[in-house]
């Protein structure tokens, strides 16, 4: 039986591996290759420059503020989004007042809340970004109007125009846009946890806090971990790019306070005609992503609970 096993398997894998190699691996290799050239992106004419582009990265202040902002997003965005997602999902499914018959249940009107939370998910990223941009408009936006209305007309921040808070403003929009998805994801996970667990815990006198940390979270750990990686990658790639590009001053400003790596790649390629340097930034983004996934996988490793 063992004889010829590999040939047999390889026979099945040739096609998928070839597709994988062409569409996934080869772009990576190409990117590394281009990052060693002085390619402009505007003509096929280029020459190898070795590690010049990488040496330049170390001197580039904008690159480092982009790394700093990207890492901030990477660390905070998943924590905030997933915590909120977990909290809302718990309240919708488990956290409600005990009612007749049902052992556990969500807060009153949880069905409506679910729809409400999921709503941003059906809007496209640019629309969400624009909506928030209007709300942040210091001249006629909803936020400053709100402050006005409650008598705080002395407090009129410039929101996206203020380097101290601009990144937070962008982050808030990203959380808002993504939290609904996790509410749904975690709700699905929670509904597959057997009710008897909760019943037993409640009989033992556990409160909501305990049921969450002793039952819900451990049994949901796999889902949380997946969500964590997914959210982290979102914080590093296109989503961050789109929000920053649309919302921020400059974009990437004011004073580079919202510059993120994918946006910098874009600016270097499409504005400055330095595609070679941009791919070097892209490769460093790849490294950050890989380190992040490795760390999360390692930290998140736990004994799998079966039920």
């Amino acid at each position, binding site marked *: *039986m*063992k004889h010829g*096993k*590999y040939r047999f*398997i*390889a026979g099945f*894998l040739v096609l998928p*591996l*070839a597709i*994988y*190699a*062409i569409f996934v*691996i*080869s772009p990576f*290799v*190409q990117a590394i*290759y*281009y990052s060693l050239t*002085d*390619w*402009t*992106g*505007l*003509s*096929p*004419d*280029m020459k190898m420059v070795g590690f010049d582009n990488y040496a*330049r990265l170390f001197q580039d202040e904008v690159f480092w503020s982009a790394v700093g902002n990207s890492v901030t997003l990477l660390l905070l965005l998943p924590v905030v989004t997933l915590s909120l997602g977990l909290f809302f999902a718990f309240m919708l499914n488990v956290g409600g007042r005990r009612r007749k018959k049902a052992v556990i249940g969500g807060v009153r009107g949880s069905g409506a809340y679910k729809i409400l939370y999921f709503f941003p998910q059906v809007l496209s990223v640019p629309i969400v970004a624009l909506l928030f*941009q209007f709300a*942040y*408009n*210091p*001249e*006629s936006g909803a936020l*400053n109007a709100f402050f006005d209305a409650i008598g705080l007309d002395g407090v*009129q921040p*410039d*929101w*996206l*125009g*203020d*380097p101290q808070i601009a990144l937070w403003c962008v982050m808030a929009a990203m959380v808002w846009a993504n939290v609904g998805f996790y509410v749904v994801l975690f709700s699905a996970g929670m509904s597959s946890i057997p009710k008897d667990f909760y019943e037993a815990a409640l009989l033992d006198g556990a409160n909501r806090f305990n049921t969450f940390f002793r039952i819900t979270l451990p049994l949901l750990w796999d889902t949380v971990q997946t969500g964590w990686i997914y959210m982290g990658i979102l914080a590093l790639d296109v989503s961050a790019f789109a929000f920053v590009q649309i919302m*921020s*001053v*400059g974009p*990437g*400003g*004011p*004073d*580079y306070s919202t510059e993120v790596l994918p946006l910098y790649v874009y*600016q270097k390629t*499409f*504005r*400055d*005609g*330095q595609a070679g*340097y941009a791919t070097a930034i892209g490769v460093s983004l790849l490294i950050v992503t890989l380190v992040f996934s490795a760390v999360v996988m390692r930290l998140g490793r736990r004994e*799998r609970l079966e039920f």
Partner: protein
Amino acid sequence: MGSTSAFNRRDLVKRAAALGIVAVPAMGVLSACAGGGSDSDNKVEKGKKSAKNPLAVNETAGLDVVIFDGGFGDKYAKDAQSEYLKAFPKADGKVKLSSTQKIQSTLQPRFNGGNPPDLVDNSGAEQMDFGTLVAKDQLTDLSTLLDAPSVDDPNKKVRDTLRPGVVEMGQFGGKETWILYYAYTVYGVWYSKGNLKKLDAEYPETWDEMLALCAKAKKKGVAGWTYPGKYPYYLPFSLYPFIAKIGGAEVLRKIDNLEPNAWKDPAVKAAFDAYYELYKKGYVLKGSPGLDHLQSQKAWAEGKALFIPNGSWVENESAKQIAQNPQFDLAVGAPSSLSDSDKMPYGTIWASGGEPYIVPRKARNAEGGMELLRIMLSKKSAQNFIRQVSSLTSLNGGTEGLKLPPGLASAQVALEKAGQNIVNPRLQDWYVALQKERIGVGALGEMMAGRLTPDEAIKKIQKYADDTRDDSSVKKYKR
């Protein structure tokens, strides 16, 4: 989850991954060809040169044009295209004109692949970097077109029908002209005569009058100035000519040439101080640092602020809001005089070409591309452009017999008043990143938001300029 079969799933995955790694070097070979395009010469044959066809266009050849579909739209180009077809009826059906807002993402692959269009309006947010295009020899020298007779007067070269400075703007230190700017933009302080009248005021010709007027407006709850804080590189539209007015055009030339300490010139400091005072005295519309260009123009058009630094496209872009106030009467003002010792007279203004057109080096039908440009520079097409989008063209004159909208008429008057005192800072087309992002967002925006003093802003800008000068990856220019 464990598997008990002889095929251990983990092993299988591992080996598949190993196979993938083996496959990687093989793909390296493939990637080598991704950036390379064919260099084969696929140009169409030239046609017969004649009085009606001075550029020797092949009458049957196709023509491929890509237009930036921005503030000016693409109708004016389509109209010119039908003129082209009238001249070369045999090309009917083979002339393609497409318009896009995404110039670079549309055209980059075509430049890389060696099959670019025959004529490109390289404009907008996704403008391809001219320095790189020139340095990489991707453009056709337009001197042939400039030396050809003009459409309206066969005894006059196209070169001699253009506004002063337009040809020079398309050059990059050599004799060749790579770019032809089709529109002609007047930059400055844009305002509403009607709104000033409400305050019993005229446009302030001195800075003291400016401050007095702002103070008066403030009492009525109107801000003096607003600007798009999200894109603070609008500020230079009135700030740079102001610097030139105070210290002479020489200061701007030094700045363009990235000379050491160019920004430390006292004229720069004086101009920055004056603008900073606007902020300090509360004459700038609150929240301006967070507004984009449309939001700030809207606030200005609604009369919440009197002045806005902008270019002549504002008339078209804000047309709807301006129309709501029949007494608006749009006008452009030159920078006010700071003191009697200003080096240049009142009226000094920034005007220069806009909508840059290029003919790629590898265009199949370069003659056709240039011919279309020649047609666009005829009086008929130019007037058509002026009527449609209320902007001037590079064609000198062409406005006779046209009823100009108020903003354009005032720009025309401003140009006449300026005479020889037209300045044209090149920072914004030579060093885009330096001008827009570093100086604009990094320093000017910060200063006008009150987070940098003029001295700090100058120090920061000087460092940015020095960095650009020392950056070997940026091509440098001199004027």
